[in-house]
C-alpha cells in the first residue's frame, strides 16, 4: 500500500518538487536577457532624475510601474516564483500585501499624504 500524501492546495499531482525541472525553467540565457531588461529599466528610472521640475505625481506615475516591473521580474524568474509551488507565492505575497496595506493605513492616519501634497500645490 503506497503512502498517500495529499498536498495542500497544490495545483498539480503530489510529485516531488525537484525545483520544477520538469517544466520550463529559465536557462542561463534567459537570466541574462532578464538582467539586460532590468538594466534598461534602471536606466529609464535614472533618466527621470534628469527631468527638470518633475512633479511628485509624475515621478510616482512613471517610477512605480517600473519598480513593480523590476520587483516582479526578479521574484518571478530569479526567485523562480513563476515555476514553483503556489504556496511560496501565497506566503510571500501575503507578507508583501500586508506590509503595504498596514503601512499605507498608518501613513494615512499620520496625515502623510498631506505632507506629500500640501494644500495649494
Amino acid at each position, binding site marked *: 500500500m503506497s*503512502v*498517500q*500524501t*495529499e498536498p*495542500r*492546495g497544490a495545483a498539480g499531482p503530489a510529485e516531488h518538487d525537484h525545483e520544477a525541472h520538469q517544466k520550463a525553467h529559465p536557462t542561463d540565457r534567459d537570466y541574462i536577457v532578464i538582467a539586460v531588461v532590468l538594466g534598461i529599466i534602471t536606466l529609464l528610472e535614472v533618466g527621470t532624475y534628469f527631468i527638470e521640475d518633475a512633479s511628485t505625481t509624475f515621478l510616482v506615475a512613471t517610477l512605480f510601474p517600473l519598480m513593480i516591473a523590476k520587483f516582479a521580474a526578479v521574484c518571478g524568474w530569479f526567485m523562480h516564483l513563476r515555476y514553483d509551488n503556489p*504556496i511560496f507565492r501565497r506566503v510571500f505575497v*501575503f*507578507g508583501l500585501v*500586508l506590509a503595504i496595506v*498596514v503601512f499605507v*493605513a*498608518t501613513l*494615512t*492616519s*499620520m*496625515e502623510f499624504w498631506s505632507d506629500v501634497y500640501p494644500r495649494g500645490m
Partner: protein
Amino acid sequence: MAIVESPTTPLELSPGAARVRRPLGGFTRPTATTGWKSWLFTVDHKKIGIMYGAASLFFFLIGGIEAVLIRLQLAAPGQKLYSADLYNQLFTMHGVTMIFLVIMPMGAAFMNYLIPLQIGARDVAFPRLNAFSFWCFLAGGIMLNTSWFLGGGPDGGWFAYAPNTGVTFSPGHGMDFYAVGLQIVGLASLVAAVNLITTVLNMRAPGMTMMKVPVFTWMSLVTQMLLLFSLPVISVALFLLTFDRLWDANFFNVAAGADPLLWEHLFWIFGHPEVYIIILPAFGIASEIIPVFSRKPIFGYPFMVFSGIAIAFMGFGVWAHHMFASGMGPLSMAAFSLSTMFIAVPTGVKILNWMATMWGGKLRFTTPMLFAIGLVTMFTIGGLSGVTHSIAPSDTQQTDTYYIVAHFHYVIFGGAFLGFLGAFYFWWPKAFGYMLDEKLGKWHFWLTLIGFNLTFGPMHILGLQGMPRRMHTYVEGYGFEFWNLVSTIGVFIIAVAMLVFAWNILRSWRAHRANPVDVGPDPWDGRSLEWSVPSPTPAHNFDEIPTVSHLDEFWHRKYQEDEAGKVVRVATGEEVAQKGDGTGVHLPSPSYWPLVLAVGLLLIGYGVIFNLGLAAAGAVVLVLAGFGWGYEPADDPEAHHGPEADGEEPSADGDGAERVPVGVTAGSPESDEKASSDD
C-alpha cells in the same frame, strides 16, 4: 525517555575503533540521553515543550509576586509601600513578564509538545532551531529580570511609549533592558514561527489534509502566522528606541521633528495581533477539551477553522483602537472603531460553537473541562467589555482606567490562562505518565475562579468610577477604597489557588513514584492522535506513522456507527493505540549549538547596554556558533538509531542513511535490501 539502552553504550565508539572523520562543527556532538545534559542539548520537541512549560510557571511566580506587591500598595488609599518610581517598575515588569515570559511561552509549551503528535510526525521541521527558540527565550527572560539587580527594572509600561521611554524621561538602564531583552525574546518566537508553520504544512501524516487537522493545531498554525508577520514590526520599534537611547538617534526626539505617534503605531501593529497570539492557542485547547468531555465532535469544525483565520486576518486591521485617545483624527477613529466591532463576530462564532458542542453531549465535569468552561465564560465577559471599548467615544472615558485593566485580565487570565491550566491537567498524563489529582484539581479550579473574579471583577466598577491606571496610589474620598480592598483579597485567593496547583503536582508525582500505575495511552477517551501513543510519550512518538482518513482519527478507530446509525465502541484506546516499541527509528541528534548561540545573543545584549567589548565577544560567539551549527549535519551520522530489534548490535559506522525501517527486523533479508537502497 523510552529509548532502550543496549548493553554496550552505543553512543561511544569502542576504543581502538576506526575514527570517523571529525565533524566539521569541531566538537563531537553531545550524546547523553538522561540527566541534565540530555535536557540542555535536547532537540526533542517534547522536552522543549516541557521546558517552556516549566519556565512559564517559574516566570508566573515572578509576575505573580509583582502583582501581589501592586495589590498590596493599592489595598488602601495613600499608602507608601514603595516610591512611585518603583511602582512604575513593578507594573511594567508585571505586564512584560506575564505577557512575554508567561502566557506566550505557556502557549508555546503546548504547541511544541502537541503539534507533531497531533499531525502524526516525529518532531518539528527544524529540531535544533526549536531548541534555539527555547534557549533564546530563556536568555531574554533572564536578561529582562536581571534588570532588577542592575540598576532597576524598566518603568515605562509594557507598551513603552516613546518619547517617554527615551533617555530624557527614562534615564537609567531599565528601558534598555526592555528594548534589548524583548528583542531577544521576539527573535525566539519569530524563529519558532518559521519552524512550526513549516511543520504543520509539510509534515502531516499521510491522509491528513488541512481540514482533518485538529483545531488546536489549526489555531496554532494561525498563531504562528500572526507571529511571523507582526514580530518584525515591534522589532523595528525596539531597534529605533535602542538607537535613540544608546546612540542619540532622533526617531522619537520631538524637538528634532519626530512624531510620538510613530511609536504607538509601530507598537500596536504588533501589539494587537499579539493578543490574538495569546488567546488563539487557548481557543484551540478549549476546542480539544470540550469535545472530549462532551463526547461529541466539535460543532462546526470548518467554522472553527475559518473563524480562527478570520480573527487573525482582521487582527491586523484593528490596532489603532489602542490609540483612541491619542488625537489621531476622526477618519482613523471611525475606521478602527468599525473594524474592531467586526472582529467580535468570529469570536462569537467560536463561543456559540463551544456551547453547541456541549449541548446534548454526555458531559463529564473533569478538571480540564471545568477550566475550559471557565475559559468560555470568562472570555465572554472580557470580550463583552472589549466590545464596549470598540465604540470610540465610550472608550475615551474607559481608556487609561481600571475598566481596561479588567477587560484584558478577563481575556488573558480568564481566557488564555484558564485554558492553559486546563491543558496542564488534560495533557499531564500524556507527558508524564500519571494523572494530576482530580479532587485537588477541582479545588484549584474553584479557588482560581473565585479569586480571579474577586480580583478583577471590581475593576470594572473602579474604572467606570474613574480610577486611573498606572498610578501608584489613589486619594481618599473617591469611593475607591472598598473595591480595591476586595481586589487585593482576591489576589491572595489566586495565590492560594496556585499553591494548591503546586501541591497537586508535588503530591501526584510523589504518589506516582511510590506506586506507579500505568495510566495508559488514553485516560480521557480522547479524539486526536496524541492519545494513540503510550504515556509518557515515547521519544520517537509513533512506532508507525498512522494513515489518517478522518478528523478525530483516533476516535474513529475506537467508535463507529452501526447499521442504525448509532455510535458504538469497536475498540478501546489501549487496543487501538500503538505499543511504543517501535525499533530502528532515526531520531534527530542533540546539539550544543542552539544553546551556544543563545548565550552569544545574551552577551551581545548585555554588551550593547554596558560594554561594547562584551557585545563584540558575543558577536564572535554568535558567528562561530552559526558556522558550527551550519557545518554540523542535521543528524549525527554516528548516532544510535533508537531501540534496535532483538538485541541486534547497533551499527556504529558513519553512514547516516542506513537505517533499519520500522517494522522490519534488523538483519532480515528485507532490511538488508532496504538498507542498501538509498533515499
